[in-house]
């Protein structure tokens, strides 16, 4: 695996069920995502975008194939570590369509939970969290509960949470689906900036074609395989 690559997937297969009811969702997908790259993942509904993301995120177990995350081969026809959750909390930041914040924790606690689990001290993790929250312009809401924030504010907290453990990889599943155009552009630009500034590989699932010009590359699920293409040029958003 080259130094540039952050995610490398080879011959990945995922099927649900067995025997007659067996359904192949992904059948022999191979692709890479580099550090500092923001990649859009597109496909029709039900094509397996979330499933693919969850396999890369070590949540959903593939049927066969190989997955590299950074220098570590995490999957080769089986998980190569028992502690997939450790990989998740140390290497990966997740962002979803909904914010999925823990309702009984306030904003800063939501952001510091994973770093503290990783062994960071309370002061250090809170300092870092405050930087992130300030960066996203919600530092003044640090001690509010998610229920007291707007949807857009919560989504920004969720992004701060995904970044708090300084991940190598960010997996974002339709992060802009619940936002208006202006905020969507804001979030994607933010992801792009994070990719560059923190040298993170970002895969973002989106149904919104208007977001594509902001990305570096497009991955498309077609015939149960993943193909890579360049972004359409000349969008007004750029």
């Amino acid at each position: 695996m080259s130094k540039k690559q952050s995610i490398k997937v080879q011959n990945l297969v995922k099927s649900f069920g067995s025997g007659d009811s067996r359904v192949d969702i992904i059948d022999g997908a191979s692709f890479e995502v580099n550090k500092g790259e923001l990649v859009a993942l597109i496909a029709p509904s039900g094509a397996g975008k979330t499933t693919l993301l969850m396999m890369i995120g070590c949540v959903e177990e593939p049927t066969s194939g190989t997955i590299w995350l950074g220098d570590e081969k995490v999957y080769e026809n089986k998980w190569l570590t028992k502690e997939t959750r450790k990989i998740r909390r140390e290497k990966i930041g997740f962002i979803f369509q909904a914010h999925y914040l823990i309702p009984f924790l306030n904003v800063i606690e939501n952001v510091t939970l994973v770093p503290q689990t990783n062994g960071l001290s309370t002061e250090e993790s809170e300092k870092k969290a405050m930087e992130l929250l300030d960066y996203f312009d919600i530092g003044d809401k640090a001690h509010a509960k998610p229920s007291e924030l707007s949807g857009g504010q919560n989504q920004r907290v969720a992004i701060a949470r995904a970044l708090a453990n300084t991940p190598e990889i960010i997996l974002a599943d339709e992060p802009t689906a619940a936002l208006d155009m202006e905020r969507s552009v804001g979030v994607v630009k933010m992801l792009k900036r994070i990719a560059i500034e923190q040298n993170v590989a970002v895969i973002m699932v989106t149904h919104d074609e208007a977001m594509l010009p902001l990305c570096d590359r497009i991955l498309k699920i077609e015939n149960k395989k993943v193909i890579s293409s360049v972004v359409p040029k000349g969008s007004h958003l750029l």
Partner: protein
Amino acid sequence: MINLAKKDISHTLGKFIVTAMGVGMLLGIVLIMIGVYRGMLVDAEALLKDLSVDVWVVQENTLGPFADASRVPEDLKNTLLAIDGVDKTAALTFQNIQIPTPTKPLRVVALGFDPFGDINAISKERLIKGRGLKRSHYEVVVSDNLGFELGESMNLGRNIYKVVGITHGTVSSGGDPLIYISLKDAQELQFLYSNARIRNDRARGLKGGDAHMVNTIVATIKSGYDVDKVAASIKRWKHKSVYTADEQKDILTKNLIERASKQIGLFTAILVVVSTIIIALIIYTMTLEKMKEISIMKLIGIPNSIIIKMIVQETLLLGFLAFIFGNAFSHLIYSKFPKRVVLELPDAWMLFIVVIIASILSSFIGVKKVISADPAAAIGG
């Protein structure tokens, strides 16, 4: 590290406290039940302690005078004195009678004793107003909880009695209020029948009742003598059943209230089981309510140990709080019970241990749910 249990509880504090109070009331009732049992034990021994005699002589082959009916001749109290080691003796009667209290008729136990005898049945510490019996007729000393005032009068049998003294904390072995009357009055009440009954009996050729019977003769033993030995010699010479104070206590606590205590014991056990099930159900639903959050935490990589710690801490805190509420509740209401309820610290500790064990067992259900939670489920649907 953030304490998740603390955060979760303070997020839904009111609900948590109300739940703990509900379980606490259940535990309070468990404590009261145990207290009722302890109260029965204390009541059973109260009269024995007040009289503080060494031996009880009753009708042969009976467990009298409390657990069995017993009749012995009154003059046995004199012949007993001839036995080596016997110090003082007294003839006593015990009978259940209905008395007209100021509010309503009440069942009490009347203790009859000779006011001029060697043993005074009314202990000085118990007498809070007035005096003991000083005449051989128509005077009565009553428990304060019957509601009589000094100088009031009451109808017993064919005669009117005057209240001359009031005692506190005196109960029969069954926990009923006690009244004291003279032996002669007691014999009249117990062994003399109404005129109609006497006429009837005469017509049938039966002899009238023998007024010179009592239920038991009690005796104290001179110091330096072995109670068991003196009791054995009374048994040998007088052909009576003789019980030492300890044996009488055993009869009262074992024979008399054994079944009642089994009844209460079983009821308490069921309550404990029900409380355990309720705690388990609460923990289960509390965990179910958090399934979404638990899935999210698993998804973002929080290890099971941290999530399980949250569930177990919440369960233990619930159990602990419920225990505190239970104790407070039982102490608030125990004095409202008509019979004695004795709340003892060791019983509370035992319940505490049971509650903690129940909580730990219940938390296993939550832990099982945590382990089986699917992180992918967080984003499904």
